[in-house]
Each structure stands twice: as structure tokens, then as C-alpha cells.
């Protein structure tokens, strides 16, 4: 076990915090600003473990980092707990640890503490990862879905559904050859740029499981407003559109791992888009709709065809249609 920890995780994550090998990581208070702490945790299970555009390690870092940054926090430190199924090739574990370290560096934070358990074959599916993260919130930042107001512009930084579609295609049981890649990336740089250009931004959420539709419903619910979006403004790649058509899925509900939805006051919306577009992961940034007052708590989409429909919360997973 010590070999596993030293040889793989310490080698990959190497930093003063973790190398001390105490029972806890110790972080100087100076690492945190005066605005407050953000703290979050998430567990990751995914099939396949390696997929185009990422792997469970990158996902586990980006997922937790993004939960911090969409609250306006700057990530400082992460924990990493893994549950390994007996027999997982060490080469796979090494690859996952390296990928976590790279993603953490990309996000500007360190993995400072962790834990490893090995369970008998069949008691886990290859590898489960839990990451927790803490970040500092600069003074004056108050992002919250309850602050969203009628008139806000709804913007996204990227095209919809890349992660969900890529993972589905990578499972291989579709027999489809696609060039789909997950959008799995840390969103810190994009969020910082957005908040610089649009300091009045009311709320940001990353649209992971349940997709953009779920975030919009959470916005509408929390603020008692209506999120109105236009189908013909939704940014979609041809590959995601194609896969969705074939399987009868709705890209609004597909998972993303590098996409946020932000509610930005109208006067700041153009400036926000202008700073996002030159950044990696921001090229497709666009406005998808507007917040209005009624019907409160609902998401309404105008189809490119002119009709209107409700975009509801999804019950369970999307199931492909029979014909």
C-alpha cells in the first residue's frame, strides 16, 4: 500500500502539503482571501474509465474545481480518495493519477491529501474517485441562483452535450464511429474573465448531469422567474446533433463537463461574450435566452419552428427511443 501511495500518488501529486504524509494537509491561511471559503465534494464513477477527451481522473478534478469556480471561488486545494477494485492494472492507475495532476495544475490548485482503499474483485467497478475541494472567494463576490432577475441574459460558454455524447459513443455498444470528444476542462479562467468583464453577474452553474435544461430549471425555481430560450440559438456541433437524432435524445439534457450557464445583467452581456470567445473553451460562447417574470418557475423554449414548449426537469436518465 505504501508503495502504491508513494510510487503513484505522491509521485504524481508531489507538493509540500501532501509530501509531509501527516494525517492531514496543513494550509496557510494566507492562501485564502478575505471573502470566505468555498468547500465542495463529489464522487465519480464512469464507464468507460478512459474516454475521448478525458478519463475518470481528469473528470474528478474538473468536476470539483468547477463546482468551486462557478461559485466565484478560486480553487486552492483538493483531496483525492480512491477505491480500487483488486486487479486494476497499475499502468491504468498511473495514467489516471498523472491526468489528475495535470488537470489540477491546469486549474491552478494542488491535490494535498488523499486516501486509497482496495476492495475485492466485484466489490467496485475498477476505480471510484472522490474529490473534495476548497477555494477562496474574493471579497464582494456573491453569486447565487436566487439573485437572478427578469431581464438577465442567459449565456453559455460552449456547445452543448459534448461529454454525454462522447461517453455514450465511447461505450462502444452503439457501433458508431464518431470524432466526439468530451469537453472536460477546468472552467476557472473562463469564469474569472467573465466576472472581470461582467462584475454584476448574478449566477453561474456548470451544466453537468442533467445538462443545460436542468440548470435552467434550477435557476427558474430558485429565483421564481422564467428562463426563456431560443432553440435556434443553442450552440450544437454536428456530431452531437447527429447522435441525438439517431438515438432520439435531447442535447439539452446531455451532460457537459466544461460548460456553464450564466445569468448576466443585460448591459454586461455583450462584454461577457467578448471576453469569453478568445479563451480556450469559450469559442462558442453565446446568448441562448433571457430571463422573464412569467410563468414563474418554468423554462420555456421557442422552437426554431416558431412553436413554444416547456423544458421540464428530466425524470431519471434519458432512454433511447425504440423507433
Amino acid at each position, binding site marked *: 500500500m505504501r508503495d502504491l501511495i508513494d510510487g503513484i500518488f505522491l509521485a504524481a501529486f508531489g507538493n509540500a502539503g501532501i509530501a509531509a504524509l501527516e494525517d492531514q494537509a496543513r494550509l496557510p491561511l494566507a492562501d485564502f482571501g478575505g471573502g470566505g471559503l468555498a468547500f465542495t465534494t463529489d464522487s465519480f464513477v464512469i464507464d468507460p474509465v478512459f474516454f475521448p477527451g478525458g478519463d475518470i481522473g481528469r473528470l474528478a478534478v474538473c468536476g470539483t474545481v468547477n463546482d468551486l469556480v462557478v461559485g466565484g471561488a478560486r480553487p486552492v486545494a483538493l483531496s483525492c480518495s480512491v477505491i480500487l477494485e483488486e486487479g486494476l492494472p497499475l499502468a491504468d492507475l498511473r495514467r489516471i493519477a498523472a491526468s489528475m495532476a495535470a488537470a489540477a495544475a491546469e486549474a491552478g490548485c494542488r491535490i494535498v491529501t488523499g486516501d486509497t482503499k482496495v476492495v475485492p474483485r466485484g466489490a467496485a467497478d475498477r476505480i471510484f474517485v472522490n474529490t473534495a475541494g476548497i477555494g477562496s472567494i474574493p471579497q464582494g463576490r456573491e453569486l447565487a441562483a436566487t439573485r437572478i432577475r427578469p431581464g438577465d441574459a442567459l449565456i453559455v460558454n460552449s456547445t452543448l452535450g459534448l461529454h454525454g455524447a462522447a461517453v455514450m459513443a465511447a461505450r462502444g455498444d452503439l457501433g458508431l464511429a464518431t470524432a466526439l470528444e468530451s469537453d472536460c476542462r477546468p472552467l476557472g479562467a473562463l469564469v474569472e474573465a467573465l466576472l472581470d468583464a461582467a462584475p454584476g453577474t448574478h449566477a453561474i452553474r456548470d451544466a453537468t448531469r442533467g445538462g443545460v435544461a436542468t440548470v435552467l430549471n434550477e435557476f427558474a425555481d430558485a429565483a421564481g422567474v422564467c428562463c426563456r430560450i431560443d432553440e435556434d440559438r443553442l450552440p450544437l456541433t454536428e456530431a452531437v446533433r447527429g447522435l441525438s437524432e439517431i438515438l432520439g435524445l435531447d442535447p439539452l439534457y446531455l451532460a457537459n463537463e466544461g460548460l456553464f450557464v450564466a445569468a448576466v445583467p443585460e448591459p454586461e452581456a455583450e462584454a461577457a461574450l467578448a471576453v469569453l470567445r478568445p479563451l480556450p473553451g469559450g469559442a462558442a460562447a453565446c446568448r441562448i435566452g433571457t430571463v422573464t417574470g*412569467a410563468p414563474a418557475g418554468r423554462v420555456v423554449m421557442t*422552437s426554431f*419552428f416558431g412553436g413554444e414548449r416547456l423544458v*421540464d426537469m428530466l425524470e431519471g436518465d434519458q432512454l433511447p427511443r425504440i423507433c
Partner: protein
Amino acid sequence: MKYADEFRDPALAKKVLARIDETLARMPMPEGRPLHVMEVCGGHTHSIFRYGLQKLVPDSIEFVHGPGCPVCVLPMGRVDDCVTLAEHPGVIFTTFGDAMRVPGSRGSLLDAKARGADVRMVYSPLDALELARGNPDREVVFFALGFETTMPSTALTLLQAADEGIGNFSMLCQHITIIPTLKALLSDPHCLIDGFIGPGHVSMVIGNAGYRFIPERHGKPFVVAGFEPLDLLQSLWMVLAQLAGGRAAVENQYARVVPEDGNPAALRAIAEVYEDRESCDWRGLGAIDRSGVRIRAAYADLDAERRFGLVPADVADPEICQCGEVVRGRLKPFQCRAFGRECTPATPLGALMVSSEGACAAYHQYGATDGATDRGASDRSATDRGAPARG
């Protein structure tokens, strides 16, 4: 996207809608009610909701959502049969995704999976056959569900299994046929349907001749349609044009896919593998004579019913359910006493609330956006159901 966007052109839609208006103005209308046009197929119901077509067409036209979603008419007893097989030791039970959530009297296949049964979603019957090849020590059962649309692929899979002598593969056959059900609907003296938008995918297999009794005996127009919004609007206009001209015929709007005589190779495979059942149960509609098929005795080894000595379960629909009234077009989904209360997408009682093609799930998900502009919403408040679109 090529071959899809062309059929979603809003400018063309405006032109078709103008023709619909113009045709409506010069045709006789039923007294005291809107014109009822039934789209038979669940795929059409899905498109109508997804593109908001009901709101685009004039108020004097109402789409009636027909029985053509195989998941929605799946009886509870048959779900119980699936669960029985899935819980049989050593069985890998495979199914199309949207059948997994349909409730039986002992829960759904998803519930059986949660209890430990090995239930797997596949995208094609060939995937199930591949699982059988890869797991020679397990029994792999495929749930062959659907209208004539899916019959050719299941028949060919079964023939391939027979050919290769794969000994651990079988199918539970729940194939149903649309024409006997249309006959049953039309023989109802209370039937208030003025014209039909016919199923495109089924017709691609069986051709158009089988529908001729509808105009000939019942005097109703029947237009076989594609699934894109322009397909549906054009088909609606073709139905209206027949009514305006005082004629009734089978017409084919979906000629780019549907050959007049269907697909002979597919029909041969179907005839080789399947024969009529005397009677078949439909959720909400009850038993309908010769409305389904079973696997022929020559392939008894590959028939899960025979192989596992299955005694088909006979379970009545829950008493509160009014699925039958909805499938017959007598009730709108939101007029059902269970809609949005006992029956929601999270806790479906009837299968119409399960499948994304089911009229009730579609109403729930894509329902009205405001009372002023949508008939659905005003009807809803009239029945004092509160706000059912969020469960």
C-alpha cells in the same frame, strides 16, 4: 444537418400553413367540435410536441394521439412476464431502453434490475445475440417489442441465431400489428376521427395497401407521413385537401422512404418467423383479435415463452387509469383523473406516462406554456388540475 434541416425549414412551413388555412376556409367542418385528425404513430406524437405543431395550426384542428407507441400499449401482464424471465436464474434479459421503466404489477424491469436481475439495455437485437455468443454459460433473452417497424430486425436476428445454432439465445415476442387495432378503433360507433396521419416506419415495411379499408369502408382520408415537422404539416394539408374535395383515399406523403408495396425482403423474413396470435392484449384497449404475432413452432427453441414454460400473466390495468380513453382519443391526457397526481413521469401508472412517445409524458414534459395562448392550458384550468406540468 443534411436530410433533416431541409424538412425543418420555417419559411416553407409558413407556406404550408397558409395552404392549410386556405383549404380549411373552403371545406365543411364538423358541428360543435374541432376537426379531429389522429396521428397513429407515437413518433408523430413526439414530433408534434417537440416542434409545438398544435400551436402552429388553426384552433379548428385538433391532433388526436393514437395507439401507435408500442411501449404505451404494453400491458402490465407482459411486463410481469419480462420480470419473471429476468429473475430466472442465469438469464441476461435484454431490451430496448424505453421498455425498462414501464410498470408491471411487480414493478418495472428497472426495479427488477435494482433487485439483482441482470437486465441490460441494447440498441439492436443483434447486440443481444452478440451477448449470447460472448456468454455461452448464460441464457440471453431479448424482448422483441414493437410494430412491424422492428419485426424485420428481430426476425432476421432469430434466423441468424438458428443458422449459427446458438443454443443460449431466445426471444420473448411482443410484436403487435397496427391494422387490426385501427379496425377496432373505427368499428367503435363513438369514433369521432375525421382523418388519419398514417405511420411512416410501419408502412415502410408493410406498404400502403392494407389501409385501403379506411377510405373505402369508413370514408376517412389516410395519409402516410414522415416524422419531420414539414412532413407532418404537409400530411395534415393532404388530409384537409381530401376532405375539402369530398374524397377519401390512402396517400403517401413519405414516398422518399415508403414504397407502395413495402419491403418484400422484410416481409419474407417476418412471414418465415412469425404467425398471427388469435388475440393480443393492449394496455387500455383490452384484447384485440389477430393484433399480434408469435414465433412459429419451427423455431420453438428460440421462443422464450416455450423455452422457459412461461405462463403469461394476466393483470388488469389499475382502476384509476384512463389510458384506454386517452388512446382512443376520447380524453386528452390532462383530463385523465390520475394525470399529474397519482401518475407522473416520476411515478408512472400507465405506460403513456413512461415513453417519450407517450401522449401523457409529452403533455407533461412539453405541456402548455401559458393559459392565454394554449388550448391545453385553458382546458387544464377548466378541469382544476392546478399546474400539472411540474410533477
